[in-house]
């Protein structure tokens, strides 16, 4: 364990500072080319540049390459390749609006390095009850895992700072769970995800200077999914992600189909005169986590964001409890 401290510290520093130092240059680059979108929740038609995906993927690749210098294991290669493919898919969607099915289908392709590199075990570990061998089903799980985690993080990227802030909480909870389960190597490999998110949050928090875009959100979600598989902590990862899963579940159960946000005509959320957010009563609009939070009355963007973070902390705590429960068997 002690011999892992140096790689852990170095990779976390590289992850944090790659994003922290490269993002201002990326913002300037995007501003010069006027690659910006309006921030819908601001009064004065503020334009915010995007995507922040390039600095996020740079942080992930740089830190994971550092780790690969210390541990030559295929798990690190799986993280790098899968995250990079997810980044490319997101970047294509950032530059050219694709259909609702494009991202889920393309992300299936992103999950193939996990299979080809053989960095998975075909059993699921459940708290209290033990493991179950499901070879055929597990391959299906890998194929679905990356599209699900990628799109789940992407779907929660609706307010300033929410996607990166949520990812900080979820990924550090997952890393803590891996340490509790004494899976130290994967725990260390997972740490850069939290530090990349932390550095990006500095520029993404309200008022945002940059949005992650699909390339950023899909990259974060895909890396999270790979960690869940290679660390054999699929259930814990799902628990830490519960608020985002609730959001996707509410969206899908109200829309009853996979649809791109841009294609929805009804508005789930509107603004009050003082530009607070309020839930609409539009029956054609999807039910979302933000809409449910606002059902109690109008709130500022910051207040809604903090409510989502409190939910993330709650589910992160449940994930850590689940990790402790993994060590108990009935």
């Amino acid at each position, binding site marked *: 364990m002690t011999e892992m401290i140096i790689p852990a510290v170095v990779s976390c520093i590289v992850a944090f500072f790659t994003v922290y130092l490269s993002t201002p240059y990326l913002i300037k680059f995007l501003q010069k080319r006027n690659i910006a979108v309006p921030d819908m929740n601001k009064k004065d038609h503020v334009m915010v540049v995007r995507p922040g995906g390039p600095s996020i993927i740079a942080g992930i690749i740089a830190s994971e390459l550092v780790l690969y210098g210390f541990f030559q294991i295929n798990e690190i290669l799986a993280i790098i390749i899968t995250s990079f493919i997810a980044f490319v898919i997101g970047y294509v969607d950032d530059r050219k609006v694709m259909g609702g099915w494009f991202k889920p289908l393309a992300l299936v392709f992103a999950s193939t390095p996990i299979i080809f590199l053989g960095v998975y075990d075909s059993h699921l570990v*459940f708290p*209290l009850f033990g493991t179950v*061998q499901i*070879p055929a089903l597990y391959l299906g799980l890998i194929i679905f895992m990356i599209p699900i985690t990628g799109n789940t993080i992407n779907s929660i990227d609706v307010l300033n700072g929410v996607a990166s802030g949520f990812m900080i909480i979820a990924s550090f909870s997952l890393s803590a769970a891996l340490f509790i389960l004494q899976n130290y190597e994967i725990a260390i490999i997972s740490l850069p995800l939290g530090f990349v998110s932390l550095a990006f949050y500095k520029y993404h928090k309200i008022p945002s200077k940059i949005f992650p875009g699909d390339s950023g959100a899909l990259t974060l979600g895909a890396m999270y999914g790979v960690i869940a598989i290679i660390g054999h902590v699929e259930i814990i990862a799902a628990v830490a992600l519960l608020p985002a899963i609730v959001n996707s579940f509410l969206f899908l159960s109200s829309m009853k189909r996979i649809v791109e946000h841009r294609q929805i005509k009804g508005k789930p959320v509107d603004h009050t005169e003082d530009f607070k957010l309020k839930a609409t009563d539009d029956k054609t609009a999807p039910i979302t*986590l933000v809409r449910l*939070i606002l*059902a109690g009355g109008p709130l500022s963007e910051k207040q809604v964001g903090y*409510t989502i973070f409190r939910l993330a902390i709650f589910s992160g705590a*449940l994930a850590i409890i689940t990790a402790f429960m993994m060590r108990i068997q009935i």
Partner: protein
Amino acid sequence: MKIGLFGFVFVMWVLIIAGGGILVTLLGPFSISGYGDFDFLLASIIKAIIAMILVVIWILILSKLKNLIFKNEIKF
């Protein structure tokens, strides 16, 4: 509302734990014999089908619970 959301997340967590228990109890000891080389493949396919049925049941329960927990809020 906010308490309802925390409650919904908690219920989802309980359902995951309980669902895991059912999965391990049902599928763990499940095996097929008498089909030679196909034993493993057949057992795998049947396990996959049972697991998918459990997931569908899980989603249906969750939908009912969503309507129950948020019945006062979801008027849209």
